[in-house]
């Protein structure tokens, strides 16, 4: 042992090369050592939920900065870095992400993009929400402006995902969750979208409630265009269901006796209350116009076009004002079609016969009251009669052979008179018309079939 002390005093010259070795070791190993420690520290943190993780290694000291979502998570992350072999010291610069109060999340949609904003609880939910938004809106750009924060209510993710499912049904608008209160505003993309969103909101997780649902439905539009050139009636827009569709098509068929119908109607929910009671009289008014457009937007009806003669315009206005359901608005922009050139009585007879071949004047069954659906045809007859102002006209009423002759005779007279009265009300002179009833004495078809009977029940105009 004594020898060792003696020899040790001679060991110092080796310190010089040792120092050189040390300098070389320090020079070459520092950077690889730091890289190695950084890699292993990062890998132990892989399973921990952190945000903005930063690891700086200087020598064997690790500076660990991160935003953690719970105190437990934070301390366990620091603990795992400390246990990495080779780490000498951990400078803990981690912190908890701030707590949001109230915890507000929003998704806003406009024409070009969807913006997700507000707070999101964890990086995983943030990614999930962005993904869900992309899936919901297809090719539309999704902008992520969410900040991570603590304090999300339980089941926040399911509530937010449910709302994101609805964003595809919006044209524009904003969905917001504030703690457990859900608010919605904006405009639905399609008719029925508002109702579909309201139905989906029934599935919101427990504890969540709807503070405000101000989603508006797009306007419910129904349009009809009467084109005198192509002799067509074009129907476009929406009707509540197939039953109403059929009813409107039937009514239009009767009112527009000679028009070809182009039916492009689609069934959709969301019709305003009283839709049928407003549309059917409005179609009746349109049938009396020479050319015209009917636009029903929600509860506003706009009808524009040319009436066939002066008195018709006033009658149409008065009729619409009377027939309309409450709460509906009517805008009638009517004018009178310029009078057509006069014709001689022979042409007049021809025109009247043509009209009556295309359509028949209808009456209420067994009575002499004119069916309102025949107003369009009658207006045409008035217009034609106005073109031969000097001609005297016999209005002949006929019935089928059903019932007693005396009744049929009286009915045919009354019906002929009703038509004459209509013409007089239209402004024609009463002494031009002779209303005569023939009962069932002049059939034009057999009375053995329903079809034949229908042909026999008629009004003829004879120019004298």
């Amino acid at each position, binding site marked *: 042992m004594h020898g060792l002390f003696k*020899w040790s*005093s001679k060991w110092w010259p*080796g310190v010089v090369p040792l120092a050189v070795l040390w300098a070389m070791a*320090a020079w070459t190993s520092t950077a690889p050592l730091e890289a190695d420690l950084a890699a292993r520290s990062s890998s132990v943190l892989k399973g921990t939920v952190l945000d903005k993780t930063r690891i700086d290694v200087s020598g064997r000291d690790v500076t660990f900065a991160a935003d953690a979502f719970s105190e437990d998570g934070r301390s366990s992350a620091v603990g795992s870095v400390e246990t990495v072999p080779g780490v000498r010291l951990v400078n803990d610069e981690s912190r908890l992400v701030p707590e949001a109060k109230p915890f507000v999340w929003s998704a806003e949609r406009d024409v070009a993009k969807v913006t997700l904003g507000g707070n999101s609880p964890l990086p995983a939910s943030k990614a999930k929400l962005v993904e869900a938004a992309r899936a919901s809106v297809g090719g539309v750009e999704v902008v992520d402006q969410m900040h991570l924060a603590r304090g999300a209510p339980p089941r926040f993710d399911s509530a937010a995902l449910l709302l994101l499912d609805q964003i595809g049904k919006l044209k524009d608008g904003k969905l917001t969750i504030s703690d457990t209160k859900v608010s919605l505003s904006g405009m639905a993309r399609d008719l029925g979208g508002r109702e579909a969103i309201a139905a989906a909101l029934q599935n919101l997780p427990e504890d969540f409630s709807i503070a405000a649902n101000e989603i508006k439905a797009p306007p419910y539009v129904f349009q009809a265009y009467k084109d005198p050139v192509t002799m067509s009636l074009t129907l476009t827009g929406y009707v509540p269901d197939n039953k109403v569709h059929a009813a409107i098509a039937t009514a239009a068929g009767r009112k527009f006796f000679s028009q070809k119908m182009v039916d492009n109607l689609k069934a959709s929910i969301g019709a305003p209350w009283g839709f049928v009671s407003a549309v059917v009289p409005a179609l009746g008014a349109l049938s009396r116009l020479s050319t015209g457009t009917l636009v029903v937007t929600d509860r506003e009806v706009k009808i524009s076009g040319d009436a066939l003669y002066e008195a018709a315009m006033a009658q149409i206005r008065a009729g619409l004002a009377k027939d309309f359901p409450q709460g509906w608005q009517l805008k009638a922009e009517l004018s009178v079609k310029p009078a057509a050139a006069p014709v001689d009585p022979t042409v007049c007879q021809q025109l009247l016969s043509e009209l009556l071949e295309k359509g028949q004047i209808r009456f209420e069954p067994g009575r002499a009251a004119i069916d309102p659906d025949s107003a369009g045809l009658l207006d045409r007859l008035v217009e034609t009669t106005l073109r031969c102002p000097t001609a005297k006209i016999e209005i002949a009423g006929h019935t089928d052979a059903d019932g007693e002759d005396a009744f049929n005779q009286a009915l045919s007279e009354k019906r002929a008179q009703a038509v004459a009265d209509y013409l007089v009300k239209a402004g024609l002179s009463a002494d031009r018309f002779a209303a005569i009833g023939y009962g069932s004495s002049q059939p034009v078809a057999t009375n053995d079939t329903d079809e034949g009977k229908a042909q026999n029940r008629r009004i003829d105009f004879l120019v004298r």
Partner: protein
Amino acid sequence: MSFLVAFHWGWLLASVLLGLAMGWIAVVHRGPGVSKLMSRWLSVLTLALLVCSVTRVIPGRPGYWLDLALLMFAIYLFGCAIGSWLRDWVISRSMRPG
């Protein structure tokens, strides 16, 4: 420590070989040694550095370099001791009357 040994085994091997060589030579070296006072001062210095290392007061890279220096120095001293002891053993064997 085991991490440092595993990471720097090449440099440590060089240190121990250097120590063995120095220890081998020291037994028969005739030159001047370190004075007692000097060696005491050097021991105090080493102790101070050791304390610094154990208490981890020097941060970052200098702290790592100090650890590395102390480890290499310790291994060097171990090599020296083994080298001197071996040389002494070889000499004493050859000095024996045979």
